[in-house]
């Protein structure tokens, strides 16, 4: 037997190649994940990190990590409870004042010193009354009074209870460093002039990845992770595959993926099924000549099959909405006046109105869920003798449809499927149906003075029971006008590693600083 060990270049290369190939077949060997790094996926890159001009999405997620707000939200699945965050102490001292004291030890990066009450004043007052998209959050803000370095009082023009949930915990509520912002000319875009949160912005690989690292100067509650990587993956299906390939630990999924994921759940993964704040409805334009008769609009409401839409478009993951106020909250209306389908009643109403061969145009966005809803409505209304022609419309063209500055087309819209991302306070969701929104986002021409009066009352009313009555009445008015069919609050679907406990806020975006290892 020849026992001589022969080695030459070719053999060595073969051996090395074979070993490498072998190692790479071992799962997780080729692409190991660092246990101390939290990897999230989001669908679009950042745009503007200045709270005054930011758009939302990734911008907001980053600011949750790098900045502080006086208070912050807990998980939306646990009722959107608020808790102190940048504030050590914060409380209503009267219907018009909120007193706060900042936590000791909060420190800006880049040598800008401690976070002060002056920074809070600057952060809020620069948004209030400005052209910022978040100015509405501080509509009732009068001023912020600085008591000392860490304490101040928020003064309101009128009692405005929703400021607690609309303004303080996120978006416009993020605190920026006055000295740093002034140094860069009063506003900034993608480079944070100073940070003070539990994580620091480390690296931006455009359209690919954002890396955040733990802030060494952070003296508050430590995160379970020392690094956060946020991957930008536009396509939901690609993101789902990438999750299965262990590219990240958490991603939101398309609603249409629910069935498939449930049928073949990836190993070690957990699915989140929740109700989002995004509400969907059918707009029926009363200004359209064909829909000016209330009986015709009601016929549509009766012909609509809510169950079919929920099953067909949402896989039964959500329930019928009775308004635009989030179901399950203290302010939600219990049920619709027209809650069950009645095709015969619809036909009778059309006959009573003297309408025959009614043909309507239904505008719907091009995404698969909206198109499915449109097709079901087309079929529903068809049974009542109404012919519906679906007009799939791309995003940019869609948003111009109801805009009065783009011509008169908004006056003759007929049916439009709409959905908006909602807020926590009912006023945030009811806002769009006010008379002054006609030609902006009120595409149904619903024009009710009583609705407007109630809206104003709802803003300043302090008593929750009275607010519920106000909001419920507003939704009654909406439904009774025949201008709306409330479809649902869309389901929220996400997948994550089962050794992770994610925290999702009311806007549907995660708060990475609150994620826990389990």
């Amino acid at each position, binding site marked *: 037997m020849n026992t001589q060990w022969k080695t030459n270049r070719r053999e060595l290369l073969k051996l090395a190649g074979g070993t490498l190939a072998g190692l*790479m*077949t071992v*799962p*997780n060997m*080729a*692409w190991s994940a660092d246990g101390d790094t939290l990897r999230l996926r989001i669908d*679009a*890159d950042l*745009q*503007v990190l200045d709270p005054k001009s930011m*758009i*939302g999405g990734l911008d907001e997620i980053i600011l949750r990590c790098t900045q502080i707000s006086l208070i912050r939200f807990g998980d939306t699945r646990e009722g959107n409870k608020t808790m102190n965050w940048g504030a050590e102490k914060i409380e209503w001292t009267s219907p018009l004042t909120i007193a706060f004291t900042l936590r000791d030890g909060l420190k800006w990066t880049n040598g800008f010193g401690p976070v002060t009450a002056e920074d809070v004043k600057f952060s809020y007052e620069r948004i209030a009354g400005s*052209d*910022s*998209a*978040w*100015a*509405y959050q501080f509509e009732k803000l009068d001023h912020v009074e600085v008591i000392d370095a860490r304490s101040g009082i928020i003064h309101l023009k009128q009692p405005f209870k929703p400021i607690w949930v609309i303004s303080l915990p996120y978006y416009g509520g993020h605190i920026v460093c006055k000295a740093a912002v002034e140094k860069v000319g009063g506003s900034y*875009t*993608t480079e944070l002039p100073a940070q003070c949160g539990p994580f620091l912005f480390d690296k931006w*690989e*455009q*359209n*690919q*990845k954002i890396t955040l690292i733990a802030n060494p100067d952070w003296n508050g509650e430590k995160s379970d992770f020392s690094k956060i990587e946020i*991957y*930008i*993956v*536009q*396509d939901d*299906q*690609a993101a789902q*595959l*990438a999750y*299965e*390939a*262990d*590219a990240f630990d958490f991603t939101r999924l398309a609603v249409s993926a629910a069935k498939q994921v449930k049928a073949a759940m990836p190993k070690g993964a957990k699915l989140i099924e929740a109700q989002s704040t995004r509400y969907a409805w059918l707009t029926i334009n009363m200004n359209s000549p064909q829909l000016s008769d209330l009986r015709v609009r009601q016929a549509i409401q009766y012909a609509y099959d809510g169950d079919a839409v929920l099953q067909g478009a949402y896989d039964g993951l959500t329930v019928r909405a009775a308004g635009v106020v989030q179901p399950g909250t203290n302010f939600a209306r219990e049920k619709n006046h027209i809650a069950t389908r009645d095709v015969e009643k619809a036909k009778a109403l059309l006959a009573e109105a003297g309408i025959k061969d009614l043909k309507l145009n239904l505008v719907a966005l091009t995404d698969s869920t909206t198109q499915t809803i449109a097709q079901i409505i087309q079929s529903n209304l068809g049974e009542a003798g109404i012919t519906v022609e679906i007009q799939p419309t*791309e*995003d*940019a*063209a*869609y*948003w*111009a449809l109801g*805009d009065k*500055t*783009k011509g008169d087309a908004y006056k003759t819209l007929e049916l439009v499927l709409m959905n*908006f991302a909602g807020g926590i306070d009912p006023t945030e969701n009811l806002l*769009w149906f006010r008379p002054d929104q006609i030609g*902006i*986002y009120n595409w149904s021409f619903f024009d009710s003075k009583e609705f407007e009066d109630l809206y104003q009352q709802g803003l300043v009313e302090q008593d929750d029971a009275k607010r519920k009555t106000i909001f419920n009445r507003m939704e009654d008015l909406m439904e009774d006008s025949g201008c709306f069919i409330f479809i649902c609050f869309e389901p929220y679907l996400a997948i994550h590693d089962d050794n992770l406990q994610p925290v999702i806020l009311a806007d549907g975006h995660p708060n990475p600083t609150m994620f826990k290892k389990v």
Partner: protein
Amino acid sequence: MLTYAIKRSLLALLILFVVMLAMYAMVFLVPGDPASIALGPRATPELKQQLIERMGLDQPILSQVYHFFYNAVTGDLGYDVWSKRPVLAEILEAFPYTFLLGVVALAWALILGVFLGCAAVIYRGTPMDRILGILSVSMISVPSFVVAIYALLIFAVWLRWLPAIGAGEIGDPWSQFKAIIMPAFAVGISWVGYLARMVRASMLEVMGANHIRTARAFGLSERRVVFKHALRVAIIPTISIVAVGFGSILSSAVFVETVFSRPGIGTLITSAVLKRNYPVVMGTVLVMTAFYLIVVTLADLLIARLDPRVRDVLRS
């Protein structure tokens, strides 16, 4: 030759101008409100107006076109509406990723395509030739995004050999190499088939030439005749196809970069279109069209230099 080069360059400039005019026309013709899309429903009308002014969309179209070209000549492609960074800087950051993807995809497609084309000639008329024909047409027919998704499923999800997304870590060539394998495979695969068919057809024409007959008469093997003598001539038409192919590969990159979440021009332009970030859209289209025209013009000039038949036509 010089006159030809000047003519080709002027034609390229004209094409570039027409493309940009078409782009501007599209911005105006396509219905929609870029400000509402970009800013969302909570934006105030004042904020929307500001954005429209920032994008220059409130100006007459001819004025926009004039300013765009005037600035472009000085290397100023404007600023990203959101990040306010120079568009040129964003393009220069993204371009190397797409360029590398295109080069790697084309390189492997060229090597394999030429090899399969030559093999088809060597085995012409045999079942192997027919198998190679079927294989080539199949590769041409499959869209790159389908290949991308299946490659992702097999190599990233099931086998976990390759990363599913990204372009690898900066400063880590090994991770960058692994990250480019699947995208380059997806982008290049249809070109393997296309080049194989092209080389085969071109080669069969050359195989009847006198110098090939002479080579055979000297008793050279068929492989040596094909690879050493016929390929040298048959490869010339492939150069222009490769140049055109580079443009096609860049457009495939748009899909593939999206599927693999790979940074690059495709991802940049897709997100810019979705956000109606017109300065970035315009700048990217200008740079990519210019790049494509340069490649095609250079290929034409190279053919004119290499192919004696073209050279003779130009001389006459």
